[in-house]
């Protein structure tokens, strides 16, 4: 890319190079592995729960037809649980991202600014 070559030639700190340096840094590696682990776990859990519920509904409908209280079936309870699931996920996500990811992000962004100053 012509552009990049030109920019690199004239700039003391090539911004793209700075990104590469950050990407290789220890703090970023930690952030990445933490965030990937978290996102994978979250996705697997939620998709797993949902798929599980759907499979039970499709292949073992008898289980969900059982009456729990009056006309309320086990299936209705399960579906209500699924509808509430995103709210629970959100609460967990806000907490995790705020406590475990944001501090690392702050540090990396400060480093990125500091390195260029």
């Amino acid at each position, binding site marked *: *890319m*012509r*552009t*990049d070559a*030109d*920019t690199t030639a*004239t*700039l003391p*700190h090539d*911004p*793209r190079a700075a*990104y*590469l340096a*950050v990407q290789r840094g220890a703090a*970023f590696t930690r*952030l*990445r592995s933490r965030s990937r682990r978290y*996102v994978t776990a*979250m*996705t697997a859990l939620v998709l797993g729960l*949902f*798929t599980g*519920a*759907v499979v039970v*509904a*499709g292949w073992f*409908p*008898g289980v*969900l*037809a059982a009456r729990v209280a*009056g*006309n*309320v*079936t086990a*299936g*209705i309870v399960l*579906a*209500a649980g*699924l*509808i*509430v*699931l*995103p*709210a629970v*996920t*959100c*609460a967990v*996500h*806000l907490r995790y*991202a*705020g406590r475990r990811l*944001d501090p690392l*992000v702050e540090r*990396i*962004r*400060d480093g*990125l*600014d500091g390195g*260029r*100053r």
Partner: protein
Amino acid sequence: MIFSLVIFFLVSRLGRARDTRSDFYTADRTFTAPQNGAALFGTFMMMTSFLAAADEVARNGYDGVLVTAGLAVSWVAALLLAEPMRNTGRYTLGDTLSIRMRQRPVRLAAATVTLLVCCCTTTVQLVGAGRLLTQLLHLPGTAGEALVIATIGGLAAMTVYYGGMRGTTWTQIINAVLLFAAVLVLAGALLVRYRFDVSALLGDAATQAGPGDGDPLAPGAKFGAGTHRTQFVSELLTSVLGYAALPYLFIHHLTVPSAATARRSVAWAVWLITPFYLLVVVLGVGAAALGGVDPRQSAVPQLASRLGGFPLAAAVASVVFTTIIAVTAGLAISAAASFTRDGYATVVRRGPLDEAREITVARRAIVVLCVLQTLCAILLMHQDIGFLLSLDVTVVASTILPTLLLSWLWRGFNTAGALWSMYGGAAASLALLAVSPAVSGSPGSLLPGVDFAYFPWTSVGLVSIPLGFVFGYLGAGLSRERTETGYAVMEVRALTGAGAAEAVPAAATTERGSRFRRRRTAARGDGLRHHADGDGDGDTEQQPAGDVVRVVDAGEEPGGGDDERQDRRRPPVPRRQQQHRRGEGGGGGRVVARE
């Protein structure tokens, strides 16, 4: 009618868009989390996710409840996508992808997919709305329906034309409030009637369903034998994965000042959606309980007229009316942004447009798109085109979703991969759908007379979504292009938000704001042209170098120039301003106002 006049009054007060890109497409990124959350909710609650969900519950009993649950669960995906979207996004999908890829081809592909999806959705919405409102308001036949469609199309076009993203978002917020209130009133009336005895309500719904239909409180209606079951699984999983990546939803991740706000605004949307969907299920069950549903009509308005006669039904009709306007407006603005930035500027003009010109083109595009879609909707209004809705969710899940995920997460991804996964995923879903029972071979399909349904399911997501990923992988493997640096930029930006587009301070229009910007530029002094993201393949260099103050005053320069203004925040900035930036995390624009 009165509702829409009120909306117009408010939009004209709150949301006159200025002629800058940032304001027109993303309302200067100044919305707060609750506002944006409400707007997300208002955008999402279109025909499928509100009225059709209640219909599903009323007609298919328990399996309809699962459809509703699938729509709710899709918000988990939206939650996880929001932050990287905000961090790497500018205005359109093409902007995000061109951080790593060669601009022209990916922008063209992104525009193709976005326009396909937005146009399909708009047309289906308009057709559905026309039918529904004609029934509700007892308008005379075809002419009335065409009139309703044209009114909605026109009003939506006006909202976007004058209000831009700001006006659109306010319309969606108002719509969210109205919708929630309407559902609350209906469900309240229903539950009071049953003295909050959910069991009795369910019992009535069960007895209303005729014998031989099976138990509506247990799975069965959509889970037939054999392939039918897998088809329903496919439908549910597609909706979980597809809704989150809809282009007109993710443009709302860009209207907030930071990734943290994007996260919180999705959370706000979820706080609204959870009770809303529980109530929608109650409404669906209630519609079934109070004497069954006419399958040719929507369940919620029928329930409303049973509960409160014509006044309540008319109120619901007007809420539906505003809903369709808000959703159509949201669709129109993301389609126009995509058309102008990704399509027109890079393909027709073969280069970025200047800012004023771009907004003019976007405004014209909105008018043209709305007129075309209105005409399409009027032409198609007697066709059963509901399958187009499932089509575009499928297309999104098998094109945009794989492309975004791979370009954020996979080092080896490149331009060819992105093109393969977008065109391939779209082609796969269209082709599979064309040979599915949705198009031919069964009584409910588009062409019932002929039979070329070789694919067994009407919902093709279970096959086409993995195909989208496979195409991306193959395409990337077949091309020798390596995007290591671009990947670094993309990954660091996605996770940390470094170099992400900032909120434009509210004061920016005033003299004060522009003075600040000028001062900031002057403080840099060196006039160097930083070019941090891989966005521009040379756009920046088309501008005269050095004359930075002029550039800033003219607003953002096209294409690569956009990044320039934003990058100015990251590269050498005097320490005094550095401190200001620290506190900026969630607060956005205020920082500059203090200055």
